[in-house]
């Protein structure tokens, strides 16, 4: 991305912001969709993320590039959204239907187990869920997840570990063993 464009954005140019938006809206949307797994929510959060970027333009460092900064802001917008949701609405029937086909999934995992895991996952605390989504579900490296969340790699490891432990406890409480 042109350095001049980034400098102009940093100095508050609305034209530069519009160009950055055009170039980056799809990738920010896809990133958010990986976290929230619901296209209409991902669209709303894409708007919210770019609004936050617009407000924070003076704190943007062009030397560090736009994408990592945008990704971090988008991740936090998604995290804030997750915190505001009631657990029972987090994986609605609509969202579940929008998930990739279960045909790709392992046949050994029963539909009952999948439903229990989806429900238990939706009840995880937001900061554990987002770490587990990025590392376990989306298979990002712990470093990539740490950069997106603005936390240390060891913190990501701890959060993923705690998420898995909570999921296991929940499944065991229902008499299931993954």
């Amino acid at each position, binding site marked *: 991305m042109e350095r001049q464009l980034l400098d102009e954005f940093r100095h508050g140019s609305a034209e530069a912001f519009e160009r950055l938006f055009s170039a980056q809206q799809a990738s920010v949307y896809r990133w958010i969709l990986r976290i929230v797994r619901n296209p209409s929510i991902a669209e709303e959060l894409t708007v919210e993320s770019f*609004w936050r970027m617009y407000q924070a333009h003076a704190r943007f460092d062009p030397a560090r590039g736009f994408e990592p900064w945008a990704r971090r802001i988008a991740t936090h917008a998604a995290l804030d959204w997750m915190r505001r949701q009631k657990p029972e609405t987090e994986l609605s029937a609509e969202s579940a239907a929008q998930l990739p086909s279960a045909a790709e999934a392992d046949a050994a995992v029963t539909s009952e187990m999948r439903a229990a895991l989806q429900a238990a996952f939706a009840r995880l605390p937001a900061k554990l869920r987002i770490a587990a989504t990025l590392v376990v579900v989306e298979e990002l490296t712990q470093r990539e997840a740490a950069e997106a969340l603005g936390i240390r790699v060891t913190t990501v490891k701890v959060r993923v570990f705690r998420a898995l432990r909570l999921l296991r406890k929940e499944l065991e409480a229902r008499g299931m063993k993954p």
Partner: protein
Amino acid sequence: MMTPDERLVMSLRSALPKQDSPQEPSRDLWPALLARTRERPSAPWFDWALAGGVLLLLALFPATLPVLLYCL
């Protein structure tokens, strides 16, 4: 032989498959963002609480008004 953690990870990936298909927003989001930038920001709740506290202070102790004006 898989460990219990590996089995759990595998089950989780089966329950929540990766979102790897390239997708685009269903509409251009620029108009929504533009509308957002034109919204008048609302004052946060603590601003209202602070204003209420100041008014209450002035109502109870009118003599503090000169001090308040001096601080402003």
